[in-house]
Structure formats: structure tokens, C-alpha cells
């Protein structure tokens, strides 16, 4: 009997020790990003980690390598390792819903950054760039730059990502009003610089006479520009990107790219980390979707901007 009592006392003291240890441990935030093979997402993830640290939390960055199955593993990992919140940049608008739902069921809040999931309630909040509105503005600039006429090419991002279509649709909602502008090719290059270069090279063989290229992100714009340089067409063809990445901003300064809508990854990442902090402190009422405005950067207003944001 004495032995049993002793065992019970020991067990109780051990569990209470564990509880108080957990209470004193800083909370942990998992940052799951679609890919680290793109400097924009590296900046997003590192900014989120920096903000989490400033707020007093431990964090770890998980790279999904644009693979929803790997992303799913990261979520399993984060849930079983006791992470308290997930800052999430999804790989797939539809396919990533299950992962966010899994975390929600485990009582872990998910805050989406930049990319959206097709669910109003799987994530606690989604902080997203207003890509559509930005591309409406970019489309207007495209029309003016090409003087309402000419042939153009569109390079799409990952086709299962909502940003790809929000950008494309916003752009076309402006440009398609002008029958003098003819889209001669529209292909996906998966938001990837090397793939964009290859795709552009093959498009140029079929359509050597083009006046403009609209790319769904800056990495693809840089790849397309490289292909145009190789084909001796860089001076004639106007290239438009999307993101506000460092090399794109430098290229606009140098007159290589024409424009890029500037997303604000710092605002997105800081807001997501701050929301997690507020959640830990008891707040539960967050906007389901928070659109962050995007601003079009050109050679005329470049002085106001630096890579990934405003000066």
C-alpha cells in the first residue's frame, strides 16, 4: 500500500513539474512556407520568424518545396511536436485546406500568409495581397505602355494557386477591353525563373513578334527577360512582373523591367505573427480574410520603394 501511495505521489509531482515547465516554456510557432526556392518566400518566412522572436516566441521554418504531401508531413510534425500556432503559406488553395483543418482540430490556430486556402473557417485568419485589384491597375498601365495595340504573352504561376488566377483575371479585366492587344500565348511557368526562361524561349520561336510580356511573379519576369536578352529582343519588349522582389526593383531602376506591383511581405508576415501573439493572449475574433493593398512600381515612382516594401 505504501509503495502504491509513494508511486502516486511521485507521479503527481512529476506531472505537476511537467505542467509548470510547459507554462514557463516560450510558445512555439511553426512557419510552413510553400517554397524557399524563391527569394520572396524566403523574405516572408524570415520576417515572420523575426517578428515571432521579437514577440518572445520560438519558431521554426518548414519548406514544403511546392509539394502538398510534404506540407502535410510538416503539419503532422508541427502538431505532434507541440507547436502552438502555424503561420502558413500554402502550396495549393484546395489541397491545403485539409492540413489547416487538421491543425484546427488539434486546437492549433493557423494564420495564412499571402496565399489563400479555399475555406472560410479552416484558418483562424488569412492575410492576403489584393492581387486582383493590383493587376487591374497593372493592366491599365500595360494598355498605356503598349499604346492599346500589339501582341503579348502571359506567363502564369502555379495553376492550383488562387493568386495565379486573381492576377491573371485582374490583368485581363483591364486589357481585354482593348481589341488591338492580342494575347499570342498563355503558359504556366510555375512561378519559377528557370522554367519561365525555357517557356519564353520556346514561345519566342513560335511568336517572334511580340511587344509585351505579363508574368504572374517577378521570378518569372526575370526569366522571361533573360530569354528576351538572349533573343536580342529585350529593348523592344516590355516586361511586367508581380511581387516587388529585389532583382525586379533593381531591374526597373536599370530600365530592364517596366513595372511590378509591390506586395508587402513584411506587413503580411508581421500581421500573421502579431495575430498569433494576440491569439495566445486570448483574442479569438479575427478577420477571416484581410486583404493587403498592392502598389504598382514603375521607373517614375521607384524612389519611394525598396525591395519588398516602401522606403
Amino acid at each position, binding site marked *: 500500500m505504501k509503495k502504491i501511495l509513494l508511486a502516486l505521489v511521485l507521479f503527481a509531482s512529476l506531472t505537476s513539474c511537467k505542467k509548470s515547465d510547459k507554462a514557463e516554456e516560450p510558445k512555439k510557432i511553426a512557419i510552413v512556407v510553400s517554397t524557399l526556392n524563391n527569394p520572396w518566400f524566403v523574405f516572408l518566412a524570415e520576417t515572420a520568424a523575426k517578428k515571432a522572436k521579437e514577440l518572445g516566441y520560438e519558431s521554426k521554418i518548414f519548406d514544403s518545396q511546392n509539394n502538398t504531401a510534404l506540407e502535410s508531413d510538416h503539419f503532422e510534425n508541427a502538431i505532434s511536436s507541440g507547436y502552438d500556432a502555424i503561420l502558413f503559406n500554402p502550396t495549393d488553395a484546395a489541397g491545403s485546406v485539409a492540413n489547416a483543418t487538421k491543425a484546427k482540430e488539434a486546437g492549433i490556430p493557423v494564420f495564412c500568409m499571402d496565399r489563400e486556402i479555399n475555406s472560410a473557417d479552416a484558418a483562424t485568419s488569412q492575410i492576403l495581397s489584393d492581387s486582383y*485589384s493590383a493587376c487591374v491597375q497593372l493592366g491599365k498601365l500595360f494598355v498605356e505602355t503598349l499604346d492599346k495595340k500589339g501582341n503579348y504573352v502571359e506567363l502564369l504561376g502555379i495553376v492550383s494557386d488562387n493568386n495565379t488566377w486573381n492576377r491573371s*483575371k485582374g490583368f485581363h479585366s483591364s486589357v481585354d477591353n482593348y481589341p488591338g492587344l492580342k494575347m499570342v500565348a498563355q503558359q504556366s511557368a510555375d512561378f519559377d525563373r528557370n522554367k519561365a526562361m525555357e517557356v519564353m524561349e520556346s514561345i519566342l520561336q513560335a511568336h517572334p513578334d511580340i511587344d509585351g510580356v505579363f508574368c504572374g511573379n517577378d521570378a518569372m519576369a526575370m526569366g522571361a527577360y533573360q530569354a528576351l536578352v538572349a533573343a536580342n529582343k529585350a529593348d523592344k519588349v516590355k516586361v511586367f512582373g508581380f511581387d516587388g522582389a529585389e532583382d525586379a526593383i533593381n531591374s526597373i531602376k536599370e530600365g530592364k523591367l517596366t513595372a511590378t506591383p509591390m506586395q508587402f511581405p513584411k506587413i503580411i508576415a508581421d500581421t500573421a505573427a502579431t495575430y498569433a501573439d494576440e491569439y495566445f493572449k486570448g483574442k479569438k475574433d479575427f478577420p477571416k480574410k484581410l486583404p493587403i*493593398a498592392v502598389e504598382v512600381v514603375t521607373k517614375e515612382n521607384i524612389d519611394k520603394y525598396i525591395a519588398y516594401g516602401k522606403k
Partner: protein
Amino acid sequence: MVQKIIKYFLILLFFGLLLYNAVYFKKISEMQVLKIETVFDAKAYAKTYLLEKIPAAKKEAVAVADLLSAMKKDSKKAFTAFSHFQNEGDMKYFFVKGEGKVTAIDEEFVTLKIASGTEIKLAIQYIFGNTSRDCSGIISIDDFSNTMDLNNVSEEINKLIKSEIVAPFKTKVQKGDRISFLGGIELSQSEPKTDKLEIVPLQLEINSK
């Protein structure tokens, strides 16, 4: 013997529980109906918005002359008082009403002179973007499961404006007509340009000469 019966019963119960509801059958037609029901109908949503909700919200619109006067006085206050938006960016939207006399008609615009003598332009050719959707403040992003649906609403509203509002108006309007309108305006908060305002029409009526 009894032990064996209990053992087999427990094994059977275990597998029974394991398989219970693990496999079930449904007709493909039932699943297709479910899928169709969950597809968002942007066209129907846009139709209700433009043809029912907008006319019903007329009293919420600010008179265009009042907006111009408020802008002249203090543009920051005017933005706070009258603008609507989905994001915290530079571009904001206004839901306006007014009437005026047609002074010019070209391919892109019908120009009106309002009572204050100011000229404004009604867009009749290029109607795109989010002005028509966001100006009234009726539509919220939280009403949608994804932003593509929200943006499709803009596209459908703009198509409807062209076909249901602008097309019949263009065939009848003449210089000298008196027009009353409901519309949306997009303005930059950092550089609000209020001379010759461009209005996306949401409702147009030709009253008389």
C-alpha cells in the same frame, strides 16, 4: 468453451466496430448534386446586387455635389466619411448619386453638367475593376469562401452594367437630356483628382430634355 465463445465474440465485435461505416456507398448523381450546390454562382449574385440591392440602397449614396464640396474642404475627412474599401490601400471607392444635363457624348464617356456647374463623366465604354463592387460597401470579403469568387463578382457586375445599364442608355441618350444616376467613383487617397470625375454607372435614367 465459454472462454472461447467470449474470445471469438470480442474478436468479432472488434472487427465489426473497425469496419462499421468505414465503407459506404453513394450514388454518383447525389455527389454531383452536392458539388453543383456548393459552386458559387457569381452571375446570380451580381444580378441581385446590381438590380435589387443597389436601387434599394439609393439613400445611402452621397450626392456627387456634396462629395465634391467635402473633398474641397477636407479630403481626409471626406474619405473617412464617405469611402468604402476592401483593403487598406490608397484606392478608395464612393457610392454617389446625382443628376445633370448631357453636354457631350463620345465613345468613352457621356459628360454631364451638374447644378453646381461642375462637369462629370459617366463611363460608357470601359467598365472594369472593383469600383462597381466596392463603392456601396454592401459586399464584404468575409461573405466569400475564397477571393476568386469575390473577384468573379466584380467581373459579372461589370458585364451586367455593360449589357443592362449602359447598352440601352447608349441607344437613347442625346445631348441636352437630363440624366439622374447612381454610380461608383474610384479615388486615390494620396492624390485625389476631383476635376472631371469619372463615374461607373450603376443606375441611369433619362428624365427629359
